[in-house]
């Protein structure tokens, strides 16, 4: 190989390392390695002492033949992800984006900032606020309103409608990301399309339906996939607000796996359960990818619109 070709190859490798190296390293350390470790652990008998005695299929045998809580946890997860996503993370986020872009810019920015506040506060603070809101006695914020304004008896959301509570708590905080993405997408729609529509006599709803929504197709698809995967594995607020209870009512699958691993010290079994979650995540991602035709999004545009 001539010298200049060798130098060229070296430079290419150097560039590869320089530009892709950090990303690959992160990908390996935080994504690939944990999955590999999880995969190996799932086939061991690692318990509280972290010692591996043997490689075994026992965890899977237990999971499929004896674990009576598994299906329940999957059911709760399904309802939780579907409703949080459908009501809040996409629909409500979209409404927020539409409304805050329809009002004068400063007012819109103010409301977006308000919706972002929960994101800025630490999770524990956010969860504590919710606990105060739904406190079952008359001191809780919700009950103060229910009792004093509506003259109704105190309600106990945490015990009587725990699933609704975790959907609300996750939804209110989860809507902010969609709101930002959708807002920026709406902002990037060429202004003249709106003017032209108005000239043609389109009303506010017609503009939303025929101009804004079609332009939001890809952001909506992206948010749906991203948020379903994120909700599938998130249990932070659930753990803080209901602890997965009462009984197992709000124990989503990820929380169930966490509990098995870290609260009873059955690390191998927790790893096996997490593996199921990885499989569900991959299948859901591929299905949604296909369903939403995301491949088209990543293709180069056929014409440039300026």
């Amino acid at each position: 190989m001539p010298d200049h070709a060798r130098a060229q190859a070296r430079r290419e490798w150097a560039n590869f390392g320089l530009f892709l190296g950090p990303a690959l390293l992160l990908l390996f350390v935080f994504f690939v390695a944990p999955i590999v470790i999880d995969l190996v652990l799932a086939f061991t008998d690692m318990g509280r002492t972290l010692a591996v005695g043997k490689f075994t299929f026992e965890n899977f045998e237990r999971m499929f033949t004896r674990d009576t809580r598994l299906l329940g946890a999957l059911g709760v997860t399904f309802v939780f992800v579907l409703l949080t996503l459908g009501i809040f993370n996409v629909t409500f986020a979209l409404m927020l984006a539409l409304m805050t872009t329809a009002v004068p810019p400063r007012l819109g920015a103010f409301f977006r900032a308000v919706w972002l506040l929960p994101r800025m506060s630490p999770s524990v603070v956010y969860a504590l606020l919710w606990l105060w809101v739904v406190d079952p006695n008359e001191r809780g914020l919700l009950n103060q309103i229910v009792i004093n304004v509506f003259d109704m008896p105190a309600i106990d959301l945490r015990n009587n409608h725990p699933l609704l509570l975790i959907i609300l708590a996750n939804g209110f905080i989860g809507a902010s990301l969609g709101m930002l993405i959708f807002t920026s997408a709406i902002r990037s729609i060429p202004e003249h399309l709106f003017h032209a529509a108005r000239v043609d006599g389109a009303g506010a709803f017609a503009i939303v339906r025929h101009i804004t929504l079609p332009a939001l197709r890809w952001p909506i698809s992206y948010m749906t996939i991203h948020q379903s995967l994120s909700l599938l594995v998130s249990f932070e607020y659930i753990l803080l607000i209901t602890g997965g209870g009462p009984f197992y009512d709000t124990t989503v699958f990820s929380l169930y796996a966490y509990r098995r691993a870290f609260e009873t010290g059955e690390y191998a079994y927790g790893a096996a359960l997490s593996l199921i979650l990885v499989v569900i995540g991959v299948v859901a991602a591929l299905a949604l990818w296909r369903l939403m035709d995301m491949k088209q999004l990543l293709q180069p545009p056929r014409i440039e619109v300026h």
Partner: protein
Amino acid sequence: MNWKFGFSGMIAGALFCAATTSALAEDVVIKVWSRADRSGPLRAGNIVAAGDTLNKMLAAAGSDKRVKIELNETNAKGYDDDALDLLKAFAVDKGPDIFVLAHEWTGAFAEAGYALNLEDHITKNPELYGDIIVPLWQSVSYKGARYGVPQDSEVRMYFLNNDKLRKLGKTDKEIGAISARVDAGEFTAYDLCDLAGQAVAKGVTKFGILHRPNAGPDFQMMMEGFGNVPYDKAEAKLQASKAGMKDFFTWVKYCVDKKAFSSTNTAMSWDNIEQAAFAKEEALVFFHGVWRVTDQSKAWNLKGKEDYQKKITWINAPAGKKGGKPSNLSHPIAYAVSAKSKNKDLAAFLVGLASQPYVNTRHAVTTNHTPINYGQQAMPEVIEKGWALVAATPMLKYASFMPNSPKIGQYNSIVFKGIQGVETGRLSADAAATFVIDELGNELGKDVIIRN
């Protein structure tokens, strides 16, 4: 010039001497792991005190060696969580030399090879351990050997608020007789729920009975009244009886229906429960242990025994049926020495020093835990400040320990889930009994015997 050299030489010499002396003076570091526990800060503190005593002895002997105690007080929410954290620390070779653990974890640490078998050390040093109350050793024994030194014991009880009982129309004579009636098997667990339910129905209190909000040893005491003995000594295994569980959960459901147990109890924080039980007096009955006397006395500004007994009545956990035996539970917290420690002997002697009457009494009287040495019971401080301990000791007649099984933590969690299921209306009595039996079988497999 010469004097200058001489002077610098002297300084250099002095520095050299200082350096070599400090190199010769050796600090032996002993790491102590203890859960930061409001109801027993001196468990760790007494090891530090033992270190000070030892250092004074070393200084008196002219030795340059000193013991330095490095204390790691963890913020685990309970002893089960703490034990799991500690097992992980040992697994990655970050274990302490001495650790504080709830006695029922002795088996798990012994089995894992992390707790040192102290049998030899204890037998060879009777001057350190000869006065320890003999039945307490049972709590730290595993497969015939002692792996720990108990630091305290306690008495658990239902606390009945006398003022609220008076409001319910009970006379002082009736109130005074409840405890004896429980012990005689006349006043049953059902009677207790009737009484508590009455208080709620009549608006005397908001809650009937408040118990701990999380899994823990208290429930074993409740369950024993219904014939549930969690350990089969002969087989050295955990056990559960289908009939016993059914009886117990039938009672829990009865109490829930009577509103004696609240659907929110297991969702409350300890702080909420303490507020409700003490400061606000919102509960007729509070279920915990004698160390709570300190909080209660503070909340109601009670001075001494007489004052306290006017306000509060203690009872054992009543039997499930008339004529049955009441139950109590003693739950010692113990010191253990790491089998992996480089300074095992030293650590064991520190434990011995920390178990002596003077230091142990400081822990006992400040937190209302029963002392560990026979002799302590005669100490003026115990008699004067520990009146509650002396008064509660007769209740220990009905006490048992938790089984020293490595899986007892899981057993307790499952039972707790069953109780939570019934209290929150998720499970019927039968469903809860089936749930507990099934889950025990699934989770503990060969480690539990399921009986009819």
